[in-house]
């Protein structure tokens, strides 16, 4: 099965390890992720205002590319647009919803894109977790070669996969989809309170003390519940929870570091992939000692 895939800027840079491990894992699951031939910025943190329509131009242009891919035969009657980055997912799905609910907005945007074919509203934005769910986590389990037995993982949802409710992939208060994913690869999901708390997001750029405090609270909560690692699908959460542990350690002397991985890295490992495909060198807190200790590397 071929599916249009929207990567976004960060998956080509600091989150390269999420992209490679996801693409290779998908292949094992019989899915070929076809990158949009001409994608642009998702338009991240889509404007929340009622009047700032121009900020929806970038996401809608990407949505239109999926229709073009179908017309050009790159994919066959496949209007789902697969995303990995939680922030891209949220932005694209929100814009798509706004266009569906306000056809006059879409007319205005198509007018601006008058040199292109225009968007017909056919695209459906999905996240990789939803794709796995549609395949069935029991089917994923059947493909697992190396179950990650004995590994206690805290599923970190953050904001963008769940909120606002109308674009979320699961319940905004008590989601289970990542727990079910963790179980399917043979690891143990840890129940914890901080799974849906914001990591501080873009404050990491100009107000990083906020992020350092939140990262400390989130990781400490995971540890309190027995987690040995945290997984996420957001490159910004990953930076705030992983790389910012440098500053967390400097500020909180009792703090013990914890590896933070992309979900796809563990999926790839469980599916029997190894080496560069896992991209474990790119993680700030080295997850290799933990994985070796558990006998998975």
């Amino acid at each position: 099965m071929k599916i249009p895939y929207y990567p976004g800027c960060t998956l080509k840079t600091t989150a390269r390890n999420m992209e490679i491990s996801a693409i290779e894992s998908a292949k094992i699951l019989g899915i070929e992720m076809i990158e949009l031939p001409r994608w642009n910025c998702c338009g991240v943190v889509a404007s929340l205002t009622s009047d700032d329509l121009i900020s929806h131009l970038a996401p809608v242009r990407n949505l239109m590319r999926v229709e073009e891919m179908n017309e050009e035969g790159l994919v066959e009657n496949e209007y789902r647009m697969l995303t990995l980055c939680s922030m891209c997912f949220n932005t694209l799905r929100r814009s798509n919803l706004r266009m569906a609910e306000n056809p006059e907005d879409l007319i205005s945007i198509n007018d601006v894109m008058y040199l292109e074919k225009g968007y017909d509203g056919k695209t459906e934005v999905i996240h990789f977790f939803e794709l796995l769910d549609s395949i069935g986590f029991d089917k994923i389990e059947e493909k697992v070669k190396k179950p990650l037995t004995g590994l206690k993982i805290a599923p970190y949802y953050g904001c963008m996969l769940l909120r606002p409710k109308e674009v979320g992939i699961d319940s905004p208060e008590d989601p289970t989809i990542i727990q079910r994913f963790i179980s399917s690869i043979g690891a143990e999901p840890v129940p914890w309170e901080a799974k849906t708390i914001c990591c501080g997001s873009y404050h990491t750029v100009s107000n990083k003390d906020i992020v350092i405090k939140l990262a400390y609270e989130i990781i400490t909560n995971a540890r309190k519940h027995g987690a040995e690692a945290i997984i996420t699908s957001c490159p910004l959460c990953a930076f705030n929870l992983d790389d910012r542990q440098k500053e967390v350690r400097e500020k909180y002397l009792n703090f013990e570091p914890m590896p933070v991985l992309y979900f796809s890295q563990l999926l790839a490992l469980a599916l029997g992939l190894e080496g560069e495909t896992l991209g474990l060198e790119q993680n700030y807190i080295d997850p290799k000692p933990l994985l070796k200790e558990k006998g998975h590397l």
Partner: protein
Amino acid sequence: MTDKIKKIRLTDRNVKFLEKVEEISGESITLCDQCGTCSAGCPFVEEMDITPSQLMREVLLGQEEVLRARTTWICASCFTCTVRCPRMLDVSKVAEALRQIGLRQAIDEIDINIIDREEYRKMPTIALVSAYRKLTG
């Protein structure tokens, strides 16, 4: 005690400010009950000078000084309040409208040039793009 109570007489200017925020945000701010659910669940409330429910009240009363509150810039649109408001109001949209009122006058909240070069290099693209989109006009 009574002399400590701030008396507010609503003027046309106050009403206009409320209408402006309602227009940009698309939210009917007068529906706010002041129940405080948004403030109770906000992960950033400790960093704020006024709570999200106070912010709503100030806007409702058309108090333009709310534009100077640190709260509007601390709100990172995590939508925790959005999914919990019993009146189905979206406080994050109200905060966005307040930010936009400033940004549309070309008053940026951050100066890109003062970000530490070392930090700049290691930061994910998405962090920089989202910060610039949220905090510059």
